[in-house]
């Protein structure tokens, strides 16, 4: 009978190797140790299998050191996908109980508990389970290969398995024997022979392979741990055989044994021999007391440190990149790649995005089948928020429990990689991290790129002599600028939002300067720009402002921050303060607890991306965007094409920012003008019933923003409804300092009223109230009006003009929060009111929760 020929069918090979174990001796309940040799087993088999032309490269799935759940998932997938031949290979520790016929395949999380009667093996898969799961497959034939201690004990289980007809079983060693895994640097002895045979010329069937393996092992003279002659086993039903390899002939020669259909190979004869004849009889069933629980590939603890080194080397070099999850159920040839979530600083986002885009389509991210190995999404979040979330909110980031604090929504995805603009951010996180944090950071030692923070002065009022552009503190540069051009101004973006602005703040406060005084130097009407690029593009909105305003921005923007939509900004010259640390983009791997479902694959994907970013590919992107080298010389990465206003060598450039310096600058910035005052106006008229519930409803948004206010800040909430002769608002929370809980309770108690709102009257009352509170101090103030704009009919013509006039004179910024799309479109009342007051307008097209929280946080001091 011809062996089963699977060629041309949907075949699958699942190669599972457990080389790394979480719990090893001498830890109680540990397995004997890691098995570095198994790693080579997988490499070698993955290499040789496709050459046999039975399995396409895309039909081979490699799963490295999986946990039991992942093993089951991979097994289920392979079983579902295979229609012709399904090959399942396992290498790792194996264990057997003393009181039952079972073989336990020990996965990464395996432990061993010895009881009085018997032992149990959590984290291991029973061979019975494997066979049962395989039974569900449509595959016409299933070949199982086990290379582990006690592999031969699987034969008993196979013999008792009802549906064994389709299953052909190959075991590395006879029953009840442990074996040595051999040298760490090579495959295990059995798999070494197996791979060599699979790689050899000529067709190879299961029967032929089993026979030749036995011969080779015998010839090698190897012994099991208990001193028996090492003897691989196989089991098949009579007459069953499968073609496993049929490589194309390398030389033109007649086939060893001819056959009419050209399918059966040279080992056809062997395949027709009954299996009993080839296995030389079953091993005698030993008394159960001999079956001990010691799963013991030898190799032991001495390999642990070596394996750690190997892993480290792989991570550093970005190697070791076999896909874990090549799980395909369809005809497309590429599996969806592993997704890396990359969080970065808002100023760096355009460059990191460009780098990721280039990496995605690069050869480094493409496997042999032309498939992408990794997918990447780059996003940014406010720098202070990101630091705070990694420091104090990892638990709720992983598992958000309430609507008010949800970093998944407000910061973004849980990053696998974080690229802040300063290595000090990493120290800020780790130094203040809560004990219950569930994300661990590992920062690369060398930053990816560097860019100094400069004072970008319009050319017309810039200093001429080269020498005066460098080597001086920021305070001196500012003083000189004022002396040259009295009308000149200075702007800095929001220090909470991006690191470059916070670094500039370090210089601004200098040594001993009163933060309030320093802040007056960069004060502006309206909220500060969020990023440095936004600032440079906002300045030309008023040409008079643009030509006399210097900006504190990272140097690279003199190259990239030139083209603003619809405007041309004044050309600027960089002055290099010697007391402002520069931007240093730093690669940080973020590992989340329990996020090990894809094993080491995520680490390797991150390491590959890091290697690319640090290498020529990443350097080209940073060079194009005007960055400098992060190494000692700090030279421009593109030294040939130096942007206008940039000095080629502005040395001395300053050292990296310190953790404490940044923390302290942020704290002083928040306290510069003392605690804040916020008056919330919450529209509770009838039309709000449709926008009341849930985290995106009016009360939900208000509550989220309370996080920006601390015990020293004062605030109150008005419910806005009531027209005609009635008071236009109801006090829901009296003005003063509050605990967050107390404030949330008051907001929760609010309900929609059966009334219309009069925004005109309410806003006038709020502006008057706040103006009165701020008469005697410079504390930051804010009015927030949350509304659905339904009653904007009361904000027309004269009424609107009243509010606009009062908004201008009261000098209290008003943040209008419109719960409808387009509420802040040009000319809409909300846009005009916030504009006149110097506040921000947010509508449903924005991220309302994050936007409002930012506005409130900038006003309040928050909690320390």
């Amino acid at each position: 009978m011809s062996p089963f020929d699977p060629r041309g069918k949907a075949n699958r090979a699942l190669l599972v190797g457990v080389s790394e174990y979480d719990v090893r001796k001498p830890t109680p309940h540990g397995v004997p140790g890691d098995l570095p040799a198994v790693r080579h087993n997988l490499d070698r088999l993955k290499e040789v299998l496709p050459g046999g032309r039975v399995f396409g490269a895309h039909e081979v799935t490699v799963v490295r050191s999986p946990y039991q759940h992942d093993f089951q998932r991979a097994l289920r997938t392979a079983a579902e996908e295979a229609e012709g031949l399904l090959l399942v290979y396992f290498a790792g520790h194996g264990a057997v109980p003393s009181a039952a016929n079972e073989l336990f395949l020990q996965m990464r999380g395996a432990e061993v508990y010895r009881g009085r009667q018997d032992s149990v093996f959590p984290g291991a898969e029973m061979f019975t389970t494997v066979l049962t799961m395989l039974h569900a497959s449509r595959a016409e034939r299933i070949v199982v290969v086990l290379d582990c201690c006690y592999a031969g004990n699987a034969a008993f289980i196979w013999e008792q398995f009802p549906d064994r007809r389709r299953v052909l079983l190959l075991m590395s060693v006879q029953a009840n024997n442990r074996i040595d895994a051999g040298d760490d640097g090579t495959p295990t002895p059995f798999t070494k022979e197996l791979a060599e045979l699979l790689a050899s010329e000529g067709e190879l069937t299961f029967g032929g392979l089993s026979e030749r393996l036995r011969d080779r092992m015998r010839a090698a003279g190897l012994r099991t741990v208990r001193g028996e002659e090492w003897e691989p086993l196989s089991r098949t039903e009579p007459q069953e055989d499968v073609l496993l390899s049929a490589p194309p002939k390398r030389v033109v020669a007649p086939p060893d044994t001819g056959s009419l259909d050209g399918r059966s190979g040279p080992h056809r004869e062997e395949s027709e021999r009954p299996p009993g004849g080839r296995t030389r009889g079953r091993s005698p069933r030993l008394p159960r007391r001999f079956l001990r629980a010691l799963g013991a590939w030898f190799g032991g603890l001495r390999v642990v440190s070596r394996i750690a080194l190997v892993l480290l080397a792989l991570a550093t070099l970005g190697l070791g990149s076999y896909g874990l999850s090549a799980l395909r159920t369809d005809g497309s040839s590429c599996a969806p790649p592993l997704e890396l979530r990359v969080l970065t600083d808002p100023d760096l986002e355009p460059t990191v995005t460009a780098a990721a885009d280039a990496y995605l389509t690069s050869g480094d991210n493409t496997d042999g089948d032309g498939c992408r190995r990794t997918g990447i999404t780059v996003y940014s979040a406010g720098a202070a928020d990101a630091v705070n979330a990694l420091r104090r909110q990892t638990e709720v980031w992983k598992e958000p429990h309430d609507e008010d604090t949800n970093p998944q929504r407000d910061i973004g995805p849980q990053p696998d990689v974080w690229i802040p603009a300063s290595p000090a951010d990493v120290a800020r996180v780790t130094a203040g991290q809560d004990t219950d944090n569930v994300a661990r950071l590992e920062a690369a030692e060398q930053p990816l790129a560097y860019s100094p923070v400069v004072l970008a002065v319009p050319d017309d009022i810039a200093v001429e002599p080269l020498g005066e552009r460098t080597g001086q503190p920021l305070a001196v540069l500012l003083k000189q600028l004022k002396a040259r051009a009295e009308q000149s101004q200075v702007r800095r973006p929001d220090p909470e939002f991006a690191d470059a602005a916070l670094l500039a703040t370090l210089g601004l406060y200098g040594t001993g300067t009163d933060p309030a005084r320093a802040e007056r130097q960069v004060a502006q009407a309206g909220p500060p720009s969020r990023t440095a690029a936004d600032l440079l593009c906002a300045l030309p909105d008023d040409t008079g402002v643009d030509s006399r305003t210097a900006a504190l921005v990272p140097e690279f923007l003199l190259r990239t921050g030139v083209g603003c939509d619809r405007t041309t900004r004044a050309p600027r010259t960089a002055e290099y303060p010697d007391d402002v640390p520069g931007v240093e983009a730093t690669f940080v791997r973020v590992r989340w607890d329990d996020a090990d479902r894809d094993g080491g694959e995520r680490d390797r994907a991150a390491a590959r991306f890091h290697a690319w970013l640090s290498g020529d590919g990443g350097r080209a992107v940073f060079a194009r965007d005007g960055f400098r080298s992060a190494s000692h010389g700090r030279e421009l990465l593109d030294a040939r094409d130096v942007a206008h206003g940039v000095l080629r060598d502005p040395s001395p450039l300053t050292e990296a920012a310190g953790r404490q310096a940044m923390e302290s600058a942020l704290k002083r910035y928040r306290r510069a003008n003392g605690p804040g005052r916020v008056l919330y106006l919450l529209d509770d008229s009838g039309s709000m019933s449709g926008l009341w519930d849930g985290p995106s409803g009016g009360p939900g948004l208000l509550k989220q923003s309370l996080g920006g206010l601390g015990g020293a800040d004062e605030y109150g909430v008005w419910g806005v409804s009531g027209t005609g002769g009635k008071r236009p608002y109801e006090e829901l929370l009296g003005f003063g300092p509050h605990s967050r809980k107390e404030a949330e309770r008051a907001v929760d108690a609010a309900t929609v009223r059966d009334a219309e709102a009069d925004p005109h009257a309410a806003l006038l009352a709020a502006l008057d109230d706040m103006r009165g509170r701020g008469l005697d101090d410079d504390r930051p103030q804010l009015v927030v009006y949350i509304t659905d704009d339904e009653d904007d009919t009361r904000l027309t013509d004269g009424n609107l003009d009243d509010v606009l006039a009062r908004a201008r004179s009261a000098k209290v910024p008003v943040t209008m929060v419109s719960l409808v799309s387009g509420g802040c479109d040009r000319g809409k009342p909300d846009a005009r009111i916030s504009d006149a007051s110097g506040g921000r307008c947010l509508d449903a097209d924005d991220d309302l929760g994050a936007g409002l929280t930012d506005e409130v946080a900038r006003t309040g001091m928050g909690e320390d």
Partner: protein
Amino acid sequence: MGVRRLLAGLGCLLLVAACTGGGGSRSGPAVEVPGEIVVASGRDVTGKNGIREQLIDAWNRQQDKANTGYHARLVELPGSADEQRSQLLGALQSGSASYDVVNLDVTWVPEFAAARLVRALPASMIGGDVIKSVASTASWGGKVYAVPFNSDVGLLYYRRDWLARAGVQQTDLSRSPLTWSQLDALMSDVNDLDPKGYEKAWTTQLAGYEGRTVNAVEAFASAVDDFSLTGSDGHYDATVDELAQGVAELRRRTEGAYLLPDAVHSDEAASMGDFAAGRTAFLRHWPYAYRTLFQTFGEQQLGVAPLPGRAVLGGQNLAVTESSPRARKAAELIAYLTGKQSERCLLDAGFAATRTSAYRDDGLRCTTGTSSAPSASPTGERADSMPRDAAGRPKYARPILLPALRDAVQRPRTPLYGAFTQTFTAQLGALFGDSPPEDEKLAADLDTALRKALPD
């Protein structure tokens, strides 16, 4: 009540769901332990009163009443679709967060199914009531992996008042199917009228993001019959000739004569703002614009009609994660959230419902939640300003939205959709640059790039 019947029948359906690993498997899950079911969904940025959360609350009340021990909890993800996808993929691949039910954009279903991050569900979870085109977004490789929750489709919004002033007799453009040449003629009429503040005839979303892909697919599918860039298995199978025809149609639609120049930098919000501000007479947009635009315009000013040519289908589908320990109950929750009653609630709140009954069955009313029905308070202040039909649905739902959904086309279906759309958007950017290449050249470049992004 329909929902109760559905739930009663669900027990047996879900037994099937547990056995999708193959007939006769003995490795089905053990008995589920009651507990929390986490639903991950993108932040609802379009102001629909948290209707999704209200539906979940209603389900929780049922569970409490029956004392089942189950409780569903909504975890909101960022508003950005890219970030939602990234978090869902990253979290389900690695286990960094636990979700039982995920709300997937229709274009992500093949990817999540192929990566085995979501489970196959019984095909019977999608009944004949679900609009056929919408139902087809839920399957991959012949299996159902998700259930349509809310749909979406491209629509044409326009200024009726300006058409009337320009002398157009029939200003209701939804009466009979409109062609692009008829639309061209109408644009020309408004151009001649040149109302105050008006700049160009129409605007849409052509910035370098998903909006450009959507608009391009609409043009391509209008130019080539039965156009699809990928086969049912996700393989790229377009020809350069087909691409060239598509590019030519997209170029025709976006040439300078009628298109607002800002459209090439516009997303949904920007294009809606320009139309609302009166800079254009026509706008291509999604159903949620209906609610928003009627806050600015009255019925005499604003009209809505199916898009000329083909329109792209959007929307989101609910799926059970592979890692969920409560998969049976999670599927039951999905059945509730996508049932007839819930779909009617979603329609009333401004979503495009996925079931025909929501549009047609006048006896079906939303009784869930507090405020999705168009009730008016005694003071006459309405919960929204959408025109409604006699049964309380948005007025355009049955005559315009439902037919538009039925005729809509899908974007390419492939597990590598992320790579596809990134490539498609980037390549077509050349059309809106300073020196656009010829149709054939652009088509050839597009073909090469797509072959690389979607390798055989």
